[in-house]
């Protein structure tokens, strides 16, 4: 990867990486640190990373840092600090707010899998490469996460 490839990666993937880190860490400040560290690692390893693999590499680093960060700090303020305020400010729909809240019910790994699947559109194999899981594990973990989210949606719907 050359300098131009790296800079193109910044322009193309910084926002997506930041959104992914925000949802994973539940904190914009931590998410910013995750993005900076991810690109710094990419720059240091640029000679070993092909331009086509830059995005996966960035998400892999961000995933590891987010999960580690989450595991260390055991953040529980995800919903209050980021999602609810943003949802209110931006007038998101009820369904989206419920889904954001449902994400807090997932562990950090399941949340990352759902985000990689829904936000970035990776398939099971690609998610496995990013997270270090095999394809079957990804499928199982994702389905568990889907079931949690679905159950939450149905329960809220019943309450509402």
């Amino acid at each position, binding site marked *: 990867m050359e300098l131009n490839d790296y800079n193109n990666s910044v*322009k193309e993937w910084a926002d997506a990486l930041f959104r992914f880190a*925000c949802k994973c860490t539940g904190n914009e400040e931590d998410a910013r640190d995750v*993005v900076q560290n991810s690109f710094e690692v990419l720059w240091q390893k640029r000679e070993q990373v092909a331009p086509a693999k830059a995005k996966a590499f960035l998400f892999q680093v961000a995933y590891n840092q987010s999960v580690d960060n989450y595991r260390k700090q055991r953040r529980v303020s995800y919903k209050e600090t980021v999602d609810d305020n943003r949802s209110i400010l931006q007038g998101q729909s009820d*369904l989206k707010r419920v889904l954001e809240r449902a*994400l807090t019910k997932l562990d950090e790994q399941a949340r990352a899998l759902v985000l990689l699947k*829904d936000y970035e559109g990776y398939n099971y194999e690609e998610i496995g490469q990013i997270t270090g899981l095999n394809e079957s594990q990804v499928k199982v973990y994702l*389905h568990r996460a*889907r079931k949690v989210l*679905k159950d939450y*949606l149905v329960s809220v719907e019943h309450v509402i």
Partner: protein
Amino acid sequence: MVNMENYEEYMMMYADGELKEAEIKALMAFVDAYPELRKELEAYTATKLLSDTTLLYTNKEALLKTPPASGRNIGLRTWWMYAAAAAVLLFAITIIRQNGDAIDSPVIANTQTEQPASTQTPVINNTIQKDSNTEELHSIPASSVTNENSIAKAKSKKQKVNKPAIIEKLIEEPRVVKEETIVQQPVYKTENEPVQEVIAQQTTQPNGIEETTSAPVETINNEPQKQKKRLLDLLPINKNKKEGVSMIANALTKRIENVTDNLKDTDVKLKIGNKEIFIVKL
């Protein structure tokens, strides 16, 4: 096939977008067959998150990288280029200055000024005489052979005979040449004539020949420059051409001297930007 045991997995895979076209059709057919499962399918589909495109990373410019100090590297390379150029220049100046001392009296250049143009090289005359003698030892008395006659008679063979002699003169020292001319003549003579005839022949040569034969004696007598001057005379070219060559040599010598003088008054400075690296005063 989709059935009551695995429909939920199909629904989750449908939400993940991992089902193929045929599998999607099979799932839809199964849901049509069991309408009470449609709400569950819609719930799984609703769990698909949509990216929040309003959430943007600000200050991306801080993440961008610029070429890492390439200017300094280029500057270093440029410095080495200047240093190499300066070294070559100093080397050339040193050689020119060293050669300047040796060029003070170039061999060819002085031939014009010091050597009379009318003098013929004794070597050529001797060899010509030798040739004429070897040809006419028995038919013509040695005393009657003049230098001009011998030249005229040996005219056709002059080039062939003179060339080796010239090469010998150019390669060897004049003293050796003189020895050759002296020693070889008796060899020729002793083959056919008594030694006395040779001596008589040499003594009875006309004045022109005596003058020419006396020239090598002068050259032997401790004047190497004059011996060198004769190198130009040894060349088988006309007088006018020799003079032309001498003029060219003189002009080149003067030009080299001028260049050398100019360099002596010149300072060589190596500057990078506004910074002087070193100065060489010549």
